């Protein structure tokens, strides 16, 4: 699912526009599998499945595979409407330099929930 982020995000003109001031590398962990995601001007330029020892990132979003699946349901259950809800449940962790994440929070919440669209969600 994470590997599909470039097509899901880059094909969404308004979503790319919301991230137009962004240039950042961040880490997404699905269970124990790390993905390094690079963004330039709101477009996802690469998603690399790790691990890559010593490769730096600004912030990391880590959750269990089960929690990501629940976040990506077309109509999520209570508690799984966004990554912050998953974090509050204790099933996700958000760490590192959070400024780019927080300054673009709507953008990142939509990016991280984008696989929902593959299941007919919004």
């Amino acid at each position, binding site marked *: 699912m994470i590997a599909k982020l470039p097509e899901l995000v880059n094909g969404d003109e308004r979503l790319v526009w919301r991230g137009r001031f962004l240039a950042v590398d961040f880490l997404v962990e699905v269970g124990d599998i790390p993905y390094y995601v690079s963004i330039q001007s709101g477009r996802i330029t690469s998603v690399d499945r790790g691990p890559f020892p010593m490769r730096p990132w600004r912030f990391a979003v880590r959750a269990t595979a089960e929690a990501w699946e629940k976040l990506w349901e077309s*109509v*999520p259950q*209570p*508690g799984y*409407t*966004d990554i*912050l*809800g998953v*974090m*509050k*449940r204790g099933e996700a962790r958000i760490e590192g330099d*959070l*400024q780019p994440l*927080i*300054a673009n*929070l*709507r953008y990142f*919440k939509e990016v991280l929930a984008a696989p929902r669209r593959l299941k007919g*969600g919004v």
Partner: protein
Amino acid sequence: MAAEIEPIVGRYIHLRMGGRPYRVYFEEAGKGIPLVCLHTAGSDTRQYRHLMTDPAVTEHYRVLAFDLPWHGKSTPPPGWHEEEYRLTTEAYAGAVMGFCRALELDRPVVMGCSMGGRIVIPLAAEYGKELRAVIGLEAGYQVQPWFDNTWLHHPDVHGGEICAARVSGLMAPQSPEETRWETLWGYMQSGPGVFKGDLYFYFQRAEADFHGYMARIDTKVCPVYLLAGEYDYSCTPEDTQRTGTHIQGSEVIIMKEMGHFPMSENPDHFRSYILPVLEKIRTRE
């Protein structure tokens, strides 16, 4: 074709609270039992515009809502630019009762959401005899912090954007897109630090105080209704249930397919839950 003009009327009232003068904006519609509505943290009275234009409500209730000082069209106090806004239980309760008394409302019903839902607990305890009932929407006596709220007032982050993004996931996915986004529009407009200052009250660890309030409430004098949306992960249904168990005689209602902002995120769906409560309060006497 005649222009479509809503029955809501807005005016300003001058109140003194905590020894300071305030110019407070309020709106009202309808006739009958006064129903004072309290908006959520970092927002304003516009959240209640659907309730105020619902004839099933305004036929029996005079619905009033005021922008808490610092919010909406109410001004902050003179000297605000040299202080950090922080809402306290005393200031909030004083503002609500000051508003009710200034308008000489006869035993109003007070309904609030989120922080407005939390304040109805001390109001019912301290001023129950002056009130007809209280309704707490998304009301927990102690909710758990889950976000670093320093970001809500920080030069590295756009205040309006972050306030909206912080709360957007608290709404139910079933709520209509239009009303969800109108709710967020409200969140994009509060002054710098206002949402954060409200949350000081909302998250304040004051369990001992609130246990005292909850034990003192006499629901035979002032009935307490607590309504919680199943999608609210800030004040969860469990938080509301727990609050209900501490207030003897209170009624807890869990709203399916509803989030943290029932009156504004899905007003049509909210009617099915709030109209029976208003009917119960009206026919009780």
